[in-house]
């Protein structure tokens, strides 16, 4: 009994550290379990105005997919303890992806069951345990893919599989009882318009920023003297808070339209789409210019000297050597800018530019969380999707530039 306690601590720690082969997965499992134990899976409120009552996951055990969550969770816990190899990572990726879909299905089913015994005015919204579980499952998929060293094709297949699973469930009405889906059903037409408008804002501003910023970046790379003045201006633009920039543009644009009324016919005005796009372009310029010039100046100068020495024309050197070698950095800039623009375009709703921000600000005004989510969630998925697609595009372009 004398030295027993002093040994117990280290021994337990040793057992733990030997037993757990995949720390990341272990943490995700622990967080997921904690969330399920400590918080509600969905929230049930009698109407939109009062706050809800949390319903834990086990209280919804009548829903079919809930046991699936338990089984997949146990499988993933077991996977933490097995010596990792490719097969195991594959299994973890598949289990975690399945878990993500099953969690979504469980939320829908639970809401459906609760709705059967509730008044039509009641609202069943997604609770903290749902969000944490879904996030943990998604992170586990990503981690497993990374450990596998999965290529772009494997990632594409995974994302496409998850997305089609989700869409299939949505189409078959799995989520209909959830308040988010109800909110969507009410705003269906407006939502489609807002989504289109949002993508237009982003597309126009990223396109505009690329059209202006790319030549500017090339000019800076070729003439380093331009660097300081150009970056000074762009840096100042970048530091203006977005709301302020949107506001600042109202005055000059209104004045412009007052002076040249014909412009109003083209949709130009102090509020609306025009100032939003201008502001988004201004924000996007710095990253585009910087990544272009960094991409071009960062390439091996020996390759350029060799190209010149062998008699390539300046145009050939630019197209065949400098541009393809700068492309990965350049596209990283475009990715940053696109993701940034998708987020900032939400704010543009404040000056009447429309887009997904409309729901966010309307929801904030009415204290309707589901309405906020109806704007925010698609914006997040849009950003993730754009990021992913641009990564693929970069990889494809890089390969295509061989002569």
């Amino acid at each position, binding site marked *: 009994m004398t030295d027993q306690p002093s040994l117990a601590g280290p021994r337990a720690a040793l057992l733990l550290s030997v037993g757990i082969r995949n720390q990341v997965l272990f943490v995700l499992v622990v967080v997921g379990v904690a969330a399920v134990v400590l918080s509600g899976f969905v929230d049930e409120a009698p109407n939109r105005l009062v706050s809800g009552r949390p319903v834990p996951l086990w209280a919804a055990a009548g829903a079919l997919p809930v046991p699936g969550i338990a089984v997949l969770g146990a499988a993933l816990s077991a996977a933490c303890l097995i010596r990792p190899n490719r097969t195991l990572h594959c299994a973890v990726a598949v289990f975690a992806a399945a878990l993500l879909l099953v969690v979504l299905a469980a939320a829908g089913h639970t809401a459906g069951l609760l709705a059967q015994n509730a008044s039509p005015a009641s609202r069943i919204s997604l609770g903290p345990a749902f969000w944490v579980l879904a996030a943990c499952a998604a992170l586990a998929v990503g981690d497993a893919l990374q450990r596998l060293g999965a290529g772009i094709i494997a990632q594409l297949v995974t994302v496409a599989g998850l997305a089609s699973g989700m869409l299939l469930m949505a189409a078959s009405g799995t989520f209909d009882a959830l308040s988010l889906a109800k909110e969507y059903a009410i705003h269906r037409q407006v939502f489609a318009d807002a989504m289109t408008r949002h993508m237009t804002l982003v597309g126009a501003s990223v396109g505009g920023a690329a059209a202006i910023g790319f030549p500017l970046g090339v000019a800076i790379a070729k003439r380093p003297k331009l660097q300081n003045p150009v970056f000074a201006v762009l840096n100042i633009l970048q530091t203006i808070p977005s709301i302020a920039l949107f506001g600042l543009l109202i005055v000059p644009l209104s004045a412009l339209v007052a002076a040249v009324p014909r412009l109003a016919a083209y949709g130009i005005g102090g509020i609306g789409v025009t100032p939003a796009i201008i502001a988004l372009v201004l924000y996007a310029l710095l990253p585009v210019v910087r990544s272009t010039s960094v991409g071009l100046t960062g390439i091996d100068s020996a390759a350029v*000297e060799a*190209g010149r*020495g062998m008699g*390539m024309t300046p145009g050939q050197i630019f197209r065949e050597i400098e541009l393809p070698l700068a492309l990965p950095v350049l596209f990283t800039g475009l990715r940053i800018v696109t993701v940034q623009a998708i987020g900032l375009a939400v704010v543009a709703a404040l000056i009447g530019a429309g887009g997904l921000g409309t729901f966010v600000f309307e929801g904030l005004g009415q204290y309707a969380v589901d309405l906020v989510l109806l704007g925010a969630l698609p914006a997040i998925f849009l950003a993730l999707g754009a990021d992913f697609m641009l990564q693929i595009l970069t990889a494809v372009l*890089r390969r295509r530039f061989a002569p």
Partner: protein
Amino acid sequence: MIEIDDVTKHYGDRRVVDRLSLTVPAGDFCVLLGSSGCGKSTTLKMINRLIAADGGQIRVAGEDIATVPVEQLRRRIGYAIQSIGLFPHWTVEDNIATVPRLLKWPRVRRVERVTELLEMFRLEPGTYLGKYPHQLSGGEQQRVGVARALAADPELLLMDEPFGAVDPLTRDDLQAELLRIHRAMKKTIVFVTHDIEEALRLATHIAVMQEGRIAQLGSPIDILEHPASEFVSDFVGRQGIGLKLLSVRKIADRMRAGETAEGEPLSPETSLRDALSAMTARRTDRLPVSDAMGRKVGAIVLADLVR
């Protein structure tokens, strides 16, 4: 092949190349030798107009280079540099075929030429054609760099310390390959280095440079035996000069024709330095010499090495 005539280059107030004149005959292997910063690279790059001369004239094959369109001039002149500058996003095949592609050779001829060059540099085409530069060792990259410079069969090859960044053993191999190719193809080569041993091994003529001028132009033996100035003799180094001389002289220079000796024969083209090591290794002061056909032509004797 190249006539450099009173050429000058300034950077600001500094004269980096100072009224330099140099004639390189066709088929010559001319090495520009000098310490760092003496203007070797500047001189070399004025030949393919990577750097514009301030004054004077350079003629290649009798033609004033200022009158030839610059890209056309460069496609006629091979260019290899220390940092190699392989295009990292192109395969070995595409890299080597750069100039043939610029010259619009048909694809079949390009592939043939690349295969031929890879074989010449002892790189198995099947293995190397599709590789990317980052998959090659330093020595292999440099071979591909030189192969690329030779791709369109240029009349003239400019090389700026091409072996400066590879390890000594690989450098030895590369030098031997370059010599073999020079002998086989009779190209005119202008080669920049600061390494006296490399210059002695490769050059038919060495131009020792000092502050933008040529301090001495001569064959390796000339430079060693009759340095034109204090500067040249300091540069080629009093220390170890005997060994340097041995390494540039051939057995043929000192052989006793008609005499015989015991043992494995050496070739007349072997350097006296290698003959000395063979004698040391075999503990003898006399070795037989036989020509390329294997006929005994004479003997080399230790005492004659130091004559």
